């Protein structure tokens, strides 16, 4: 039983570490802000959630201590991580950060021009 619990814990923590490493490599290698935000938000949120689940299972199965605060932390990260990335990407688009030169489709540009025309700006 302890071996099964340890396999579960090690699986979750190793998966979380792999996702965090992928997020760091993505932030270094990707060309512009939006692709970096894509790498950093999605992968690191999943990585930290996996590590927290591993810690939760370790304390629950090995130490007999059920800690619901960790589950609340998983839920909180799941809600707030992507929303933070969304707000940062959107505000940097409106502030004028250009996408990568190989971008083929930009739907938000048309929408922002329409909103500017409706509100009589510029």
């Amino acid at each position, binding site marked *: 039983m302890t071996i099964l619990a340890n396999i579960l814990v090690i699986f979750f923590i190793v998966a979380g570490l792999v996702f965090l490493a992928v997020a760091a490599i993505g932030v270094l290698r990707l060309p512009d802000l939006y692709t970096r935000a894509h790498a950093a938000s999605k992968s690191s949120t999943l990585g930290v959630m996996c590590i927290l689940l591993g810690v939760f299972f370790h304390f629950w199965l090995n130490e007999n201590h059920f800690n619901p*605060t960790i589950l*609340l932390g998983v*839920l*909180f990260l799941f*809600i*707030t991580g992507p*929303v933070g990335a*969304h*707000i940062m990407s*959107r505000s940097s688009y*409106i502030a004028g950060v250009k996408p990568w030169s190989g971008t083929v489709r930009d739907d938000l540009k048309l929408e*922002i021009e329409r*909103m*500017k025309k409706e*509100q009589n*700006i510029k």
Partner: protein
Amino acid sequence: MKTNDVIIQFTAKIVFFMIFFYAVHIFFAGHYTPGGGFVGGLVTASAIVLLIVAFDLKTVQTILPINYIYMVACGLILALGTAAFSMFTGKPFFTHFFDYFNLPILGKTSLHTAALFDLGVYLVVVGVTMTIIQTIGEDE
């Protein structure tokens, strides 16, 4: 330019309650585990700051019509009253009392007057933080 901010407002509405109830948990867990009045007050203030970021200073003042300066005063009176209460019974200043009670739902509970002192600290921390942030935010 006026843009839609539906996502952050909807998220703030949900996350506010999560942060606030976690702050209450930190406050009540302070006697036996890490936490207490100071951290609980700061977390509560950060939940209100999240609402201010997502909505507006005026909107949040209509949602939570609290004068935070009175809140600081209430907290100081509560802390001082808890500390001074033992002087009237002939004990030294800051002597605390505790006893075990059988509450209807919670069962055997130990109630301690240090929790009232901590409640004073909580109110002072929330009041001071929110006063600072509102005073800076109101400048135009």
